[in-house]
């Protein structure tokens, strides 16, 4: 419990130091990116893949900013790192704190649930885009950031608020801890 409170405190003090942007500029920019991809690419799977790739590139870069500004120095420990992702990462970059639930016994899979997020305010998916994962970029960000910490994860959207669910859920599964990478 105290670890969680400590992370929340770090998040608040970092959040107060960072420059802010009006959330609607952000929502509209993200909307423009998604709709441009939908127009430019042939099918929705391709759009999802591109969003994931863009997210990955963002995550790879953001992780260092988070570590530099918070002074956190995590080992590749899934429970601790996921707490940092939710309590610090999402808090300082999107202003939200998703909840973590459904940890499996050996702490390798967990579900992140989002009640609301600036990303998808005002969005209504047309029926022609039923297969679009509007949130896919966020999956990529998590994947990219954790990869830099030596953890290979798979992120899947298991429930989507835009498709009628109560929350948007991302299932994060740890596939491999890449120790060797740092020693070779």
């Amino acid at each position: 419990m105290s670890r969680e409170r400590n992370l929340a405190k770090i998040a608040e003090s970092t959040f107060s130091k960072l420059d802010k942007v009006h959330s609607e500029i952000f929502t509209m920019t993200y909307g423009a990116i998604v709709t441009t991809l939908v127009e430019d690419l042939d099918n929705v799977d391709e759009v999802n893949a591109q969003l994931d790739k863009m997210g990955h590139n963002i995550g790879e870069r953001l992780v260092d900013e988070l570590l530099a500004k918070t002074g956190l120095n995590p080992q590749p420990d899934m429970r601790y790192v996921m707490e940092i992702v939710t309590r610090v990462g999402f808090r300082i970059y999107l202003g939200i704190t998703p909840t973590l639930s459904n940890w499996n016994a050996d702490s390798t899979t967990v579900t992140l649930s989002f009640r609301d997020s600036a990303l998808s305010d005002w969005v209504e998916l047309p029926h022609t885009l039923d297969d679009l994962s509007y949130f896919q970029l966020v999956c990529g960000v998590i994947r990219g950031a954790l990869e830099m910490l030596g953890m290979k994860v798979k992120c899947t959207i298991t429930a989507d608020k835009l498709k009628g669910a109560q929350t948007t859920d991302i299932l994060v599964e740890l596939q491999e801890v890449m120790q060797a990478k740092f020693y070779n």
Partner: protein
Amino acid sequence: MVIHSLFILSQSGNLIYNQVFQERSPEASKISANDQILLASVFHGFHTMGRAIDGSKSGIEKVYFGECVLECRGTPTGLKLFVIADRSSADALTKFLSAIYELLADIVLKNPFQSLQQPIRSELFTQSVSKTALAVK
């Protein structure tokens, strides 16, 4: 109270940034660019060995030699930042490296045209590093 030089190594041990603070450190600026790459590689090797022997994640943190001190900061993402300075500045180096890491995250990593493994050539970064180094007391 002088900071002589700063090195940044990528995850794979390549020297991606190196700056000698010439006007304050004429001796250090006599070392050729090639030798600096060599020095950085040697340090990378020792650092990796240190971690393997010790089993810890941090590796070499400080080296004292003569009038100087080397301090290294490894990041969880595998970057290594290290600085060589006069012993009289030793206490300020941890803070200095934190400041450099923040500059790196802000100025370099947020540039979409900068690839993560490539050498850093950013005028703004160089200027900001110089400013930070000059401010060290």
